[in-house]
């Protein structure tokens, strides 16, 4: 039984699971100063330019959920769902590997109206999160997920184009205010065409592929996805962001999510690189090394032995003595 806790045949993704924790820590260092050179309006329209970031748990799960011990869990000593324990891939992270709770961002009754077959796929996605979530492989995040990943993004607003550069995975999208036709193939990030509804920027997004997810809980869509996003400045440093999600192949009716996006007001804020395809190499290709760094590959399966050597003096009961 003990061996079952320590050994697991799931592929590892410690770095990806820890990202949320790292970002929320850096968020606490904001200084509150705003940039002064940015005009409030461009050509009479509200200016959304600047660096923004969601500060919520939507990337873990769009729906309301209680905190849980880890993104990957397994049965503990009790057979109850509420008593599961972290599984080996994230075990060594302790509480930093846990999933924070949330009241959810899904509007109305908080339900995502899956068709019955699609709901089964969503549940299987959740069970196979490590192997299926494109975030772990550093694939493109898609829209709307890119908007609430725990990474900043930068809006550069011009007159006929609004460019959004996302820190995660070097990706970007251009919102065309000048009605450029869609691309000849489907895309992760969609084709965005914007218009103004008073002071609200309304963006119609189409031409999606069926690869991106909405969150780490396995919520997904098909290539029939159609989004209508609404960006409204609630104050100079808060955008109210709403998205109506329509996908007749997967959902029985349109549904929507909404959340604030906050300006990163630190005076030295800038987007840094998060070129994660490098970080995912070991995860994706480690089994093909001549001398594997992880010692328990069996074919494509990474078998994780958790060996945590605690340095002398760092055992938990010695901590107060230091």
């Amino acid at each position: 039984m003990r061996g079952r806790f320590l050994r697991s045949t799931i592929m590892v993704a410690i770095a990806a699971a820890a990202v949320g924790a790292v970002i929320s820590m850096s968020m606490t260092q904001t200084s509150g100063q705003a940039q002064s050179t940015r005009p409030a309006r461009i050509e009479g329209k509200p200016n959304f330019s600047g660096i923004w970031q969601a500060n919520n748990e939507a990337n873990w799960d769009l729906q309301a959920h209680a905190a849980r011990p880890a993104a990957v869990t397994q049965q503990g000593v009790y057979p109850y769902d509420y008593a599961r324990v972290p599984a080996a891939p994230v075990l060594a992270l302790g509480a930093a590997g846990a999933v924070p709770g949330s009241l959810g961002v899904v509007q109305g009754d908080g339900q995502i109206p899956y068709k019955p077959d699609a709901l089964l796929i969503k549940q299987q996605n959740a069970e196979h999160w490590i192997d299926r979530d494109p975030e772990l492989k550093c694939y493109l995040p898609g829209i709307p997920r890119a908007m609430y990943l725990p990474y900043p993004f930068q809006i550069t607003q011009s007159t006929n184009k609004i460019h959004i550069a996302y820190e995660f995975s070097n990706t970007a999208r251009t919102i065309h205010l000048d009605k450029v036709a869609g691309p000849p193939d489907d895309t992760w990030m969609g084709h965005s065409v914007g218009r103004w509804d008073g002071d609200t920027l309304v963006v119609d997004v189409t031409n999606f592929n069926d690869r991106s997810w909405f969150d780490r809980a396995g919520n997904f869509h098909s290539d029939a996805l159609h989004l209508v996003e609404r960006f409204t400045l609630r104050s100079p440093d808060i955008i109210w962001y709403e998205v109506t999600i329509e996908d007749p192949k997967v959902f029985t009716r349109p549904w929507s999510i909404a959340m604030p996006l906050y300006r990163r007001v630190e005076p030295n804020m800038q987007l840094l690189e998060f070129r994660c395809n490098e970080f995912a190499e070991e995860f994706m290709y480690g089994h093909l090394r001549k001398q594997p760094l992880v010692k328990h590959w069996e074919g494509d399966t990474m078998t994780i032995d958790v060996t945590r050597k605690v340095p002398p003096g760092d055992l938990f009961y010695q901590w107060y003595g230091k």
Partner: protein
Amino acid sequence: MRDRFSGSMLTVTIVAAVSAVISMSITQTSAQAPAASSGAAPAPALKTPWGEPDLQGIWTDETDTPLQRSPKFANQEFFAEAQRAELDKERSALLRRDRRVERGTELDVAGAYNALFMTQKRTGARTSMIVDPPNGRMPPLTPQAQKLAAADREFRLALLQATETCKNKSVACSGGKYDPTPSPRRADLPPRYNTARMNRHDGPEDGSLPDRCLTMGLPEFGAATGSFRRIVQTPGGISIFYDVGQGQGWQRNIVMDGRPHLPANIRQWYGDSRGHWEDNTLVIDVTNFSPKTDFQGSRENLHLVERWTRTGPTSLEYVVTIEDPTVWTQPWIVKQEFTRQSDQENRLYYEPRCLEGNYGLPGLMRGARAEELAFAEGRGPHPATKDNATDFVGVEDDPLQ
């Protein structure tokens, strides 16, 4: 058995390269008809509504100009029109990567990555992108850089010494010699962090940066597949999205408020860009490069000063001063002329999707593991005698080079 390994490896490489075909065919279309595509759009103002020079749009270099001037054109900065026409004729007749060699050889299979994958554009007006030094050549390397380059080259040649590539005196082995004994250096670490193709696939780090979907960033001169950049401006801000290589796009958000560069311990693939306006020119200072990047031997000490100037409704001049006192004995300057591209015809350039289609990198490793196993079981040749990564034909023919 041998042929099956190399064949399947190359097949997966081709699949990974499909996105390049799309961007290249678009390159060729717009290069053929620049007047038609730009004529349809209204002439853009050269200033933004808020009074800054307007650099916005999608831009590319529509012609081919070698980085360094060929000795054939020494002391000639520009081609005469007749010369360009003659070169175009000569170059369009080249088979390049479509050239076939002896059927059934590894070298021939490598040709599956054929000329379709490589952009070939009209010969440019200049004989070299380098405008300073005036001879159009990179300045001499420092003794330290020469030593590093020699050590790197020596290591790569050691990995090739027992292969057909050296036996046949192929270009990839130039400077080396054939020795049927596998080199004892095959298990060594490279002299420094690897960025280029080598004849070994022990792990992902043995792949070149482009093979790992980690194409280097700046300076970006287009390389074999061409490149596009979309510039969008806002008051006090500029964003540039680059589409390069095979779905290896990336972006820059130029910091324009005069603050100092990032702390020295933050190193980035694309460096750290600080811009300001000098009259109508956007001047960008770029530092803080990662030691994992490599531009002609320059890594973390690379320093660029870029100058972007809108020169007309459909033209943008790009001049970059390249400096690294640890690598070159003097700074040098490259100049490119970009032409504005149609928005409508360039609608796929925001998807850096290289990684999801990159079956080539794991394919090379899987192939190498299979070869090792076959050798261990007495079914195949010594893996050190194989070269499935570095030898190609048809890249050496271009009269511009």
